[in-house]
């Protein structure tokens, strides 16, 4: 992206598509990349009846031009000068901005503990699987199928309590609205300060 000013981990871009008849559709996509690099990385979950994602996943070719605005959002972000422990919690493709935070954390040499709890259907549905496999700070909650011995099924308050860093940590939760609502509610019930739990919802999935 020419002239890109760099971005903070957790920020997003708005992608606007314009049809030949002038009809426009805009969607927000989180960046998996962060820092000064002008080469941006998005991860797009293809929604079967979506207006924008099928085009981005199936039709866009290298060299195609896209209308893009950003970096956007200053709230759901992690900065390298934050020193408190960080618990990241992802549902499905909600892992994208959290991967940006993991990368930013590694690149900055931050000594703040950071770990990820990733709820996803199956091991094959994971985004960034190869990269996450190199980390020992990632725990999975598979909802449909997973390795023998794993508890399979939707996250519960009890499993959440056992998997996350203690009260006092900064918590970032990103995923489908229902997932985020449940997790954020449980975190507060478990004693986390609502102000230390930051959330990003992307609707139904």
């Amino acid at each position, binding site marked *: 992206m020419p002239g890109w000013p760099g971005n903070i981990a957790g920020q997003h871009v708005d992608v606007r598509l314009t049809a030949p008849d002038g009809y426009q559709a805009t969607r927000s996509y989180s960046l998996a990349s962060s820092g000064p690099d002008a080469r941006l990385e998005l991860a797009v979950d293809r929604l079967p009846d979506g207006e924008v994602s099928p085009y981005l996943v199936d039709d866009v070719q290298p060299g195609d031009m896209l209308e893009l605005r950003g970096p956007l959002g200053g*709230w759901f972000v992690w900065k390298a000068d934050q020193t408190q422990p960080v618990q990241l919690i992802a549902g499905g493709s909600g892992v994208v901005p959290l991967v940006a935070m993991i990368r930013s954390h590694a690149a900055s040499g931050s000594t703040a503990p950071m770990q990820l709890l990733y709820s996803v259907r199956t091991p094959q549905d994971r985004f960034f699987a190869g990269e996450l496999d190199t980390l020992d700070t990632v725990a999975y909650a598979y909802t449909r199928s997973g390795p023998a011995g794993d508890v399979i099924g939707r996250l519960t308050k009890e499993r959440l309590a056992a998997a996350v860093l203690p009260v006092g940590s900064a918590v970032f939760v990103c995923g489908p*609205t229902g997932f985020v609502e449940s997790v954020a509610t449980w975190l507060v019930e478990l004693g986390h300060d609502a102000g230390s739990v930051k*959330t990003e*919802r992307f*609707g139904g999935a």
Partner: protein
Amino acid sequence: MTEHIDGNVLAGPLLDIFRQDMTTATARCASCGDISVLATAMVYDAAPGWCVRCHVCDDVLLTFVRADGRLHIDLRGITSLEVGV
């Protein structure tokens, strides 16, 4: 889409009016008095615009509509806004 998302999505659209990131701005709800950052508000798709509701009392904070090259914003549900400068 009837399920809400949250105020993070307002970063781009509100840039057109306020010329700075408004997701970190705090707004006071005219209905219940709650003061929260706009990122935590509930946002409903009301194409060609958005309806933004208080995450505490569910009352409307603001609506905006983009049509015919104009952006119309109704702020009646917010009695004050505070932004970093």
